[in-house]
């Protein structure tokens, strides 16, 4: 087993979250977890098809960043996008229906698991090729800066969060966009979810410098390393980065050290990752960690947490029922959405 990188620790002053915030973060992570468990079940029961990449284990990153943002901020994801979409506010019904390929899905059944979109929730996608979302997110951030500086719109202070994995950090688009974002001081967070594996390619076999956050420095950008299994740590780092971006002080590269508890996709036999490694990370389950913290700090009781889990279970069950009952897209609408009419 490879020596695990020492995780950065961040002491969170107890006053940084209220009971309401703590429960909100807990609920969002639990939603991601239970939703994805249900996805696995539905995939194996033949209700969803194609490639399905689950996020289980990484919830603290999505919740920690997106729940520190405003609803009018932008979120850009990858092919592992279900939980980012949920954190961004896309209703579970619409995400589940999309995975079922139904007309009521957030992409009207045209996108599928890897192509979730919601203009209403400022979710830019859902990008299935590694790193191709990074330029698009950079463009959304450019747009905000443009509206503010060229069009004189003082309300244009939205921030874009761009999520991608360790594998993407070796792609040219990553370096090119870090350069441009720093050059033009764009309001963007580049959030690398370093889960150590790009399918079967171990990060240390692919990267000459494995500490990705250090790559910010050559662009004159702030780079932060954070324990991606600790939602409060992620939230704290994200809040600072969002404040910098909103103030026009430019982008931040955040490397969240995390782990996916399942294989790359539901089709991945997951034979390369060692048992020891998986056990090491499973012990650091971000949901259990936050739950324990909330109880320990007397911000919540175990009953509160169980109630949230039951509430979320009902949301997910409702999403499945909605997806099951929803209509398929109509054959006569096959050509819809190719071109916009204005």
């Amino acid at each position: 087993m490879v020596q695990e990188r020492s995780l950065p620790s961040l002491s969170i002053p107890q006053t940084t979250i209220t009971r309401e915030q703590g429960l909100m973060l807990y609920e969002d992570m639990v939603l991601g977890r239970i939703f994805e468990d249900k996805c696995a079940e539905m995939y194996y029961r033949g209700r969803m098809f194609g490639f399905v990449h689950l996020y289980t284990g990484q919830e603290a990153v999505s919740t920690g960043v997106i729940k520190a943002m405003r609803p009018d901020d932008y979120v850009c994801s990858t092919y592992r996008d279900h939980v980012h979409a949920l954190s961004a506010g896309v209703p579970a019904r619409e995400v589940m229906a999309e995975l079922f390929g139904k007309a009521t899905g957030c992409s009207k059944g045209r996108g599928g698991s890897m192509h979730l979109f919601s203009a209403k929730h400022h979710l830019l996608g859902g990008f299935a090729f590694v790193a191709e979302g990074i330029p698009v997110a950079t463009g959304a951030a450019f747009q905000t800066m443009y509206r503010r500086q060229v069009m004189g719109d003082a309300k244009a202070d939205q921030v874009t969060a761009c999520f991608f994995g360790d594998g993407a950090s070796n792609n040219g688009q990553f370096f090119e966009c870090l350069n441009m974002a720093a050059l033009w001081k764009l309001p963007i967070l580049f959030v690398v979810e370093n889960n150590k594996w790009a399918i079967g390619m171990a990060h240390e076999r692919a990267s000459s410098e494995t500490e990705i956050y250090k790559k910010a420095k050559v662009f004159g950008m702030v780079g932060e390393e954070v324990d991606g299994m600790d939602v409060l740590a992620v939230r704290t780092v994200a809040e600072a980065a969002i404040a910098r971006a909103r103030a026009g002080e430019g982008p931040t590269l955040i490397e969240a050290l995390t782990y996916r508890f399942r294989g790359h996709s539901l089709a991945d036999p997951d034979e390369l990752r060692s048992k020891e490694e998986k056990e090491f990370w499973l012990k650091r389950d971000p949901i259990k960690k936050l739950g324990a913290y909330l109880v320990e700090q007397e911000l919540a009781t175990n009953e509160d947490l169980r109630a949230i889990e039951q509430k979320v279970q009902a949301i997910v069950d409702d999403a499945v029922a909605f997806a099951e009952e929803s209509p398929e897209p109509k054959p006569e609408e096959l050509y819809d959405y190719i071109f916009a009419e204005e």
Partner: protein
Amino acid sequence: MFNALRAAIDEEMERDPTVFVLGEDVGHYGGSYKVTKDLYKKYGELRLLDTPIAENSFTGMAIGAAMTGLRPIVEGMNMGFLLLAFNQIANNAGMLRYTSGGNFKIPIVIRGPGGVGRQLGAEHSQRLEAYFQAVPGLKIVACSTPYNAKGLLKSAIRDPNPVLFFEHVLLYNLKEDLPEEEYLLPLNKAEIVRSGEDVTILTYSRMRHHVLQAVKTLEKEGYDPEVIDLISLKPLDFETIGASIRKTHRVLIVEECMKTGGIGAELSASIMERYFDELDAPVIRLSSQDIPTPYNGTLENLTIVQPPQIVAAVQKLVQGQV
């Protein structure tokens, strides 16, 4: 023609503050072919955004800006360079609107010089319109005169969809008096350059001018060809094309892209499918050779279609020798 393109951009930027240009050397330098000359002085550096040499990323960035409400014009310093942006153009400009179930519009123009120039070598002499025609969701337009360049570019900028807009490296210095008043030209209409009865010649971009040279000879010999400039390479304007074929019953395609998988290949197959019963002769294609464009001037001229070949092809077609 570069002034016509510049005027189109200037007028649209004046009209709509969300329109901006980005690309290599479009700002201070004014564009390699002067299409954005000095516009940065009027509109500032953010609206004439000089980018680093990172085609895939700045094209993707423009797509993200378009998805969120701006109207970017990406200049490919040479359209061939946009091979490096193929992923963003195909996956995200072309397909994202559909894949998103109509969540996003992508009003973007991707323009610049294409075609075979004068001894620029293989990489700078590419005809990407053929490569991109298979990508769903893209409109592809080729301008050929200062008049149509201006009217078409203005329409492309106002179109809510991604438009690949091909200019030709050897046509930038064409001169023509343009109307004083504003005008727009439809992106989806072919232009009947010369009406005739004997044969329909379908062409676009610089080959329009080779065809017109050939027509001068043909007219002296008593031929009466109809010349159609396709303008829209995708979708093809079959209304205009079909009406002409029903009149002439013979088709000659003259193009600068390579024969294999080219615009002419698509056109020829579609004509066969739609108008087989109208045809009195097989559709003939005159295309560039299927080779990387050679540097040597003589070899380069042999690679692309020359006016005498067009004359000979029309003579054969009309005389029933094919």
